[in-house]
């Protein structure tokens, strides 16, 4: 891990599902501390791309480097990358058989070998940060969707990752819960966390993103700072997409 290298460097990435070409020669570089928002129509490969970054999906060709570490067949490099890259899922994916606190301390204790007491203190700190400290001893099934998602963010933070990946973190939530999750994400962004965030929350993108990326059919179609992206989209497909999303 070389913290001076670009946080993420993807070059010419290709991914097939059977014969279906899901990512077509995609390239993307993200600097440390940068906040990137990815949007695009359903099925355009957004999830596939960020799942390749922590190798939940194996890519077929091209290269992905995370802080200079090349992701290939070497299992050690995959482990190293996963330690530094946190992920927040659309459906939270909390472990239903563990309490909120155990969810948060599991990986630090097992993977980082943090002593339990330290891991718990850290977890409580992050749970407080996502404003859910009072629920620490509950089980995920006893929480609302918004609360669960905030726990999921805290769980990812407990590994003290360098990069956080978000895959549509708010799209399974009711409107009043979206705000509480976005609040937490804005706080994180303002603290300088490197983030790649797949979302259709355009307000969030405008507020915190350094760069907005529009994907379609497995390619990056447009890539610009938020102001330029929203005011003057250059590509026809982007314009169509924006008009649809913003119409609501």
């Amino acid at each position, binding site marked *: 891990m070389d913290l001076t290298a670009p946080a993420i460097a993807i070059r010419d990435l290709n991914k097939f599902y059977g014969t279906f070409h899901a990512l077509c020669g995609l390239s993307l570089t993200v600097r440390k501390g940068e906040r990137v928002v990815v949007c695009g129509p359903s099925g355009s490969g957004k999830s596939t791309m960020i799942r390749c970054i922590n190798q*939940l999906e194996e890519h077929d060709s091209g290269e992905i480097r995370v802080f200079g570490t090349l992701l290939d067949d070497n299992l050690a490099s995959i482990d190293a990358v996963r330690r530094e890259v946190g992920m927040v899922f659309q459906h939270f994916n909390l472990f239903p058989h563990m309490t909120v606190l155990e969810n948060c301390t599991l990986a630090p204790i097992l993977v980082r070998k943090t002593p339990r007491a330290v891991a718990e203190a850290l977890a409580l700190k992050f749970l407080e940060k996502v404003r859910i400290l009072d629920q620490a001893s509950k089980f995920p099934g006893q929480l609302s969707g918004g609360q669960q998602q905030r726990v999921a963010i805290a769980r990812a933070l407990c*590994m003290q990752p360098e990069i956080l990946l978000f895959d549509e973190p708010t799209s399974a939530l009711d409107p009043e819960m979206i705000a509480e999750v976005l609040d937490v994400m804005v706080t994180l962004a303002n603290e300088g966390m490197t983030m790649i965030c797949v979302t259709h929350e355009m307000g969030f993108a405008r507020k915190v993103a350094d760069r907005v990326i529009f994907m379609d059919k497995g390619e990056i179609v447009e890539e610009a700072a938020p102001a330029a992206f929203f005011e003057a989209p250059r590509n026809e497909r982007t314009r169509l997409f924006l008009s649809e999303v913003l119409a609501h």
Partner: protein
Amino acid sequence: MPMPAAPLWRSRTTRSLLLQGGFALALLAAIVAATLTARANLSAQGMTSGFDFLWTSTGWEMNFTLLPAAPTDPYWWFLLLGLLNTLLMGLIGLGGASVIGLIVGLMRSGRNPAARFLATLYIELFRNLPLILQLFFWYALANALPNPRAALDLGPALLSSRGIYLPGLAVPYGAAIVIAAILLLGLALAIRVLAARRFARMEPVPRRVLALSLVLLAILASAAIALATHPPGTGWLSLPQPRGLRIDGGIRVQPEFACLAIAIMTYGGAYVGEIVRGGFKAVGRGQLEAARALGLSPWQVFSRVRLPLAFRAMLPILINQYVWLIKATTLGIAVGFSDFFMVIASSITHSGQTLELIGILMGGFLVVNFSLAAVLNRLNRAIALKGHNTGGAA
């Protein structure tokens, strides 16, 4: 619109009372009638009813007992021994079925196609043939084994038509039972320390030390008992030795016992294997991905997330399967293993106290199965996912 007061037979309350009263009365009448007929029929044959026969001696022998028994012993002792045999067979059968089931279930839900195919073959073969057919087959096989004089030599063990002879510890029988009980207890306590939520807040290392010392303690206690009871001046291991038409020494496992145990283990293993596979299939992909994204190793993903969630998914079905397997021990009668049911059947032939003995049979199975289900259901409730509505098994 004003309604006229409902006539009595149209009112909801009366009708519900009438229906329930009628139902209860009909049931009661059937039971009373059956009892009276049975009384009349039995007294016509000159039989007395009641449970006094339990204290008379049986006059016949049981072919397999855990504790000493003689034809002069009373019926209640034989029945108790039969129940013990059923429990022992149930314990061995359930344990073996669970181990086999876990192995084939894991093989079936793994990635390796060759292993998956082998496990599928096993499951489909053993699950789709009647248990009693498999039992008959094993028994015919056991009877076709050579006689003790030409027993098959499997290293320290001997295989003959008189049974399997295993090497044993040279201590008196009573001491052996106490040792087995102590070892089981130590192991159970250790597992509890490792698994129970109550100890979850201990650091992993002292927890393991505690568990290990429990096992060591049990081993030490057993060794002490063995030392105290071992007849001095003889070898520590009792190996089976062919002596003409007999085999001396070692532990003899009756062919009837071995065949029933093998049949229940292999048949039950196929069913448990399917249940295990179903449990693993029920674990959401999301949880596994989240665990991997956190950087857990494959073994950690399996032991911390996949297995615990799968176990919760399979436990309710497993409970029913276990009750079923306990009931399957009654097949002992088909090959002549003295389980509870066979002792009851023999008692009926010899004493003629049909109704009483059938009552005892049903009572025995109700108690065993309800307690097994109660314990497992408690476990199920204890580990059930909080905040999810999952019902327990019946």
